[in-house]
């Protein structure tokens, strides 16, 4: 049975970009087929008349739960920096991406034109 094509390989590529994933051509084609098969099953929900049914986002009747405005200890800087990723630099030396105070990332903002 042929699967209905709801999404095209081009749309799958666009979705992957939005989700910050890079796909090979093989992955793109594989996922296109599999996601279309899932969507075909999902579309069976379109046979239901839901005009009078309110959406349910959460099963318990909880709303606007807030904590008291009190300062409490959280993770120390040391504990957080201990988990910073180790990266492999040129010459294959490995180093934690931190200067001991901050987490290091590529330059995002550049100064001046």
């Amino acid at each position: 049975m042929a699967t209905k094509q709801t999404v095209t390989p081009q749309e799958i590529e666009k979705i992957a970009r939005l989700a910050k994933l890079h796909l090979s051509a093989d992955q793109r084609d594989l996922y296109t087929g599999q996601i279309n098969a899932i969507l075909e099953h999902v579309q069976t929900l379109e046979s239901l008349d839901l005009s009078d049914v309110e959406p349910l986002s959460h099963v318990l009747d909880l709303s606007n739960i807030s904590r008291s405005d009190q300062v409490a200890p959280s993770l120390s800087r040391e504990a957080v920096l201990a988990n910073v990723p180790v990266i492999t630099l040129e010459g294959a030396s490995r180093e934690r991406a931190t200067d001991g105070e901050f987490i290091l990332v590529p330059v995002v903002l550049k100064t001046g034109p």
Partner: protein
Amino acid sequence: MSPIIRERLQAFPVALKKQGELNAVITDTSSQALEQLDASPDGPLSGLLLAIKDNLNLVDTPTTAASRTLEGYVSPYTATAVQRLLDAGAAIAAKTNLDEFAMGSSTEYSCFGPTRNPHDHERVPGGSSGGSAVVVATALVEAALGSDTGGSVRQPAAFCGIYGLKPTYGRVSRYGLIAFASSFDQIGVFARSTELTAKVFEVIAGHDPLDSTSADEPVVHFDYSEERARGLTIGIAPEYDHEGVEREIRERYHDLIHFLKGQGLTIKEISLPHTAHGIAAYYVLTTAEASSNLARYDGVRYGRRVHAPANLEALYTDSRSSGFGAEVQRRIMLGTYLLSAGYMDRYYIRAQRVRRLIQQDFITAFEEIDILVTPTTPTIPFPIGGKVNDPMTMYLSDVFTVPMSLAGIPALNIPAGTGANGLPIGLQLSANYFGEETIFQLSRFLEQNYST
């Protein structure tokens, strides 16, 4: 402190190695537990060896979620449910294998390789909490924690022949559990008896200020009463008893219902008309939630980072693409699509409306019955490799467990003997919100009186 527990912890690495082929454990934490044994408090779980699924944080141990994305990550804190086990005197000996980020029904989608079913090594143990189910089934530990989003405790419990409880949504704090689909995720318990399942459940249940969705409802203590069990009204539903269910499972289900009738319990046929739409609604809502929850794995603060010195976009994309396995990528993309502009009403909002219909089915049913009895799975454990390349078929194996997850009601797999080929058969007992104690009553009654 019992000297036996010390010896068992010392012997644990050897015992684990003996069942190494099953690949149920990611991290052996027995030496850490041994070091902490003298400081371990006396409590209801003293002297017991436990395991936890490796998507639960335990301080100073790696938490992998079976994903390359989390390589190098060491938990800086302990999950509330795990802390409650430790405070109750338990020793935590292992962190167990799972489908990556708990997404799967077979424990095959793990970056550490598949876990095997102890009853037949060529078959899956179920999933996603397959490792926890296996270490309990093989008696390596007494009990284990898993997490259940759409059946990930109940289905592996059925495939491995043990008890597996998914509590009411919000009953157990999710603080420290790696999030998959936050409006579904619930920590559950595996054990080999009703009594111990209930005991561990009572330790981990209860409100936690660190999880704003945890329920502030009293936990009813389980005290077995045969009289109460015999007074329960049992519901059966045709939507769970049809030709799509393997013959052996149906026969066992009919046999158990027949037994209950013979014992004088009231059996009532009820209808849950929207059951068949459960899978579609479930996979829309959970992939949408997952795509949002897994956005946090950006390669910046912890876990895997692919070095891209000049380009932040490449850092994100390269780290995520090489970190996530195929099933996780598929679900992130599906969820991203379903939530994208123009499709939200067609898929996501529609699925939320179906979720209400399924909840309403159960609310109506529990006006007439105390416990719903159904099969846990439509099939016996399937062969390793049988469904990995066909996600839609894999998803359909959750057909009898996702409705309870959509509604958020509690459900327990009970072992109901084995079929002709020696593979376990599981049946599922479900109750209304916060009805765990009622489930335990029927479960204990069956444990004492029903034999296959």
